């Protein structure tokens, strides 16, 4: 299923951090995914989110994942009052498709209930301008900090100069991708809140891609040509310490999704509403669930599989015709990440619980 050929780039990982604790990828629940769906979660006609339904979905999912009887106990599996928590959202498709404030707000309420002060909770992403489009501030608890690593596009000041992956893909001069400085200097825990989307280069963008390409600088260089380096770069970045050890929980936002042209909504016809969230600590397992979901949807729409690599399906430009794509997609990046020890890809070893509310 890896669907990749050729030699991999030579990566050099530079970090002063060592793995720590039992948390982090794949965490205490390898091979485990909890999918919670509610028809009430989204009103498709008005494209609006029901915050109350989302809160219930999160509560049910967290209790199912941990076996706890209450929310406080469930969240205490991962977070303690002394933590400083970064919530890694995905705003790359804003305003049409991004980590929904209703879900992020519910997560924050639980963190505060556990005892984490609001001013030690950060909503963060790479690009400040995209965070501003979503405008989380008025929609979440007062005092929560919102931080974009790049207040000006391309600025490296929000990144840690001592934690990076160095690789030369195609002769580019800047060969470093640096970790967001908040992750290495400030956060003790990270909660990953990706969206569930097709991605024209990576195949899908879920847990792995959100935590990898969303936490490091200078990553777009990996997909400048039809044949990209997303296959190995995503997992390599996700495995870098301290990001790997500090990311204790993944909550995939599948309230809205898109099945073509991602990560941006290039046409409303590609938007659909799975009305679900998927929780777990194993990003590989969760992304496998996502992969199956997007494949199913594309099949229903008559679109080629994400694993299609034929030149007859390649065409540079806006991906408005689902038969074509600008890149050879690399959904095999998920299985590749499993070879780095980040999680379980083998379907036979995955336990997925589906809950309908």
């Amino acid at each position: 299923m890896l669907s990749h050929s050729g030699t991999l780039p030579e990566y050099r990982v530079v970090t002063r951090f060592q793995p720590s604790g039992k948390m982090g990828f794949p965490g205490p629940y390898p091979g485990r995914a909890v999918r919670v769906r509610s028809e009430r979660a989204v009103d498709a006609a008005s494209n609006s989110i029901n915050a109350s339904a989302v809160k219930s979905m999160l509560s049910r999912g967290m209790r199912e994942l941990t076996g706890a009887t209450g929310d406080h106990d469930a969240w205490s599996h991962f977070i303690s009052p002394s933590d400083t928590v970064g919530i890694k959202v995905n705003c790359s498709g804003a305003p049409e498709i991004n980590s929904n404030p209703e879900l992020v707000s519910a997560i924050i309420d639980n963190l505060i209930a556990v005892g984490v002060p609001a001013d030690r909770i950060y909503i963060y992403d790479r690009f400040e301008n995209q965070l501003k489009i979503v405008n989380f501030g008025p929609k979440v608890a007062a005092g929560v900090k919102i931080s974009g690593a790049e207040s000006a596009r391309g600025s490296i000041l929000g990144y840690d100069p001592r934690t990076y992956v160095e690789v030369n893909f195609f002769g580019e001069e800047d060969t470093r991708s640096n970790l967001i400085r908040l992750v290495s200097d400030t956060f003790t825990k990270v909660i990953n809140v990706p969206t569930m989307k097709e991605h024209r280069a990576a195949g899908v963008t879920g847990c792995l891609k959100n935590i990898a390409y969303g936490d490091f600088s200078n990553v777009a260089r990996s997909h400048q040509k039809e044949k990209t380096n997303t296959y190995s770069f995503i997992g390599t970045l996700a495995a870098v310490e301290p990001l790997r050890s500090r990311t204790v929980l993944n909550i995939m936002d599948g309230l809205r999704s898109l099945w073509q042209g991602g990560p941006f909504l290039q046409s409303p016809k590609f938007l659909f509403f799975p009305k679900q969230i998927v929780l777990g600590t194993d990003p590989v397992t969760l992304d496998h669930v996502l992969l199956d979901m997007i494949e199913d949807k594309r099949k229903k729409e008559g679109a080629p599989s994400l694993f299609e690599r034929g030149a007859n399906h390649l065409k540079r430009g806006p991906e408005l015709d689902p038969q074509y794509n600008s890149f050879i997609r690399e959904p095999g990046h998920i299985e590749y990440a499993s070879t780095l020890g980040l999680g379980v890809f083998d379907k036979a070893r995955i336990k997925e619980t589906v809950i309908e509310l």
Partner: protein
Amino acid sequence: MSVLLAAAFLLQQITVAPANADTAQLSKAATPRVTFHANEASATRAPWVDSNGWRYLRQPDGHFYCEAPGATAAALAAGEAFAYGVHVAIHTDDAGLAPLNKMLAFLSDAKGGDFSPLVNIGFVDDGSAEAGEFMNLLVRRNLLFRVVKQADPKLDLTVTPGSAEYPKAEAVNPSLLAEKVRGNLTDAKRLLRIYGSEVVVGRLVGNGDAARLYLINYGAARSPARGLRVRILGTFSKQQAVQFDSAETQLTDVSTDSGATEFTLPELKTFAMINLAK
């Protein structure tokens, strides 16, 4: 409107050219800047840097004339000429006059140090246009070289256009040739790396115990370079930065590990000098 009535001597090698200056005896230099060729096919999406570095390295004793209109280009031209130590007459307009004078005053204050260029590549220049473009790409990639007549064993690499390694047939793509030079030298041996900008060029000089790095932001007219990570081969325990058009410049995240000195320059507006000492 052209100004500059008095050709004032301001620095040893940089003069301000009057509007009616006789430039026939001077070699023409390009206006230092960045241009974007969005509608042209190219191998990369990189912005096009109009640098004179290769001209100045080809003719270190030459006398140049640079037309540099606007608030940024004239100051940039002066900084560039100073970094390469060449004679340049700069002609600017109303907007450029004050920044140019300010830059010349800055450079006058900054003089000092008995420095020679620090390079580890030799380039056998046949004087052709193709060799010129090849050198231009090396400058833009901060692959530090000097022109040599023949291979110099003291250098890590000698580049001879037209040789089997760098055949004339490949001259149509100087970017690929520059990439080949980079590969043959290896990144580990590069004297200078600049991360965080495609439009900043560095010039490194030194004398064994001390060194100075000139940083030129060719994109200054569009925006400052917000955050540059610089890696210089060699350990320099002292670092100090001064910058034209910026009152104070602090280097951050300095490290001197693994035989290299690294630091971050939080913002580069137009031109900076980093003084280093062991």
